């Protein structure tokens, strides 16, 4: 198995852990952190292909990752603000109780 495949295995495992956590946990903050983990796995792939793909442009992967990190930071800020707003409404952050719009 060559190093690129090892990197891809690493990021696949990280993605799967994030997905399982986001699906399993009932806590708003932990679901958000599971999403972060999946995005990190995507960044890992960018860097792995930039490093190992023959003929990749010199700075492409790094710039991709920088933009992805910036977008993730914005997403985290809004997500945590939503969690705090949820806490103000129902005095906890359990997502199973956030069902006021349920039909």
């Amino acid at each position, binding site marked *: 198995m060559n190093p690129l495949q090892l990197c891809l295995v690493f990021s696949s495992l990280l993605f799967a852990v994030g997905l399982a956590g986001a699906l399993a946990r009932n*806590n708003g*903050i932990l679901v*958000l952190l599971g999403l972060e*983990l999946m995005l990190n796995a995507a960044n890992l792939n960018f860097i792995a292909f*930039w490093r190992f793909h023959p003929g990749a442009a010199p700075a492409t992967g790094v*710039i991709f990752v920088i933009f992805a*990190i910036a977008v993730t930071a914005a997403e985290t800020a809004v997500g*945590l603000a939503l969690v705090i707003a949820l806490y103000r409404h129902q005095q906890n952050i359990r997502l199973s109780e956030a069902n006021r719009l349920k039909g």
Partner: protein
Amino acid sequence: MNAVLILIALVTVGAAILAMSRRNLLHSVLLFAGSWAGVGAFFLWAGAEFAAFAQVLVYVGAISMVVLFAVLLTRRSREDLAPGPVSRSRAISAVLAGIAVAAVLLAAVAGTPLAVSAGPAPAVSVRQIGGELMGPHAAALLVVGVLLTVALLGAVVLAAGDRPENPEDAP
């Protein structure tokens, strides 16, 4: 070289698994910070120093602190840190979904012939990254700046809420 990569991968994925299975939310967040630091170590290993710095500054520094603040703001007592147990069937089905996705991805990775360049990492200096950001990617940089500003303003608006004024607080 591969041994270092495998070590980084084991530490990162192990920290993530532990973080997702902990009952105490504070432990989870600290383990997540460790996992993000592991991803930063991978960036260093791959020769993307600038991405590693960004990862450490943004994730290990800023996002973990913001998440810790959110954890501490959204609890009422010490016991609140350990939320009630997740339903068993939900946990099992989530883990099964994760294993299924991992299996599909791993099969695809193992079954694809991937060409690898044997040479060293593409050398990229900070000056070069700055030139790329300000030159060909200037429009994207501006859009990201506007996005961050709007998102942070929106976060403030969402989190601040509209609390009724207490007349006794008025000077």
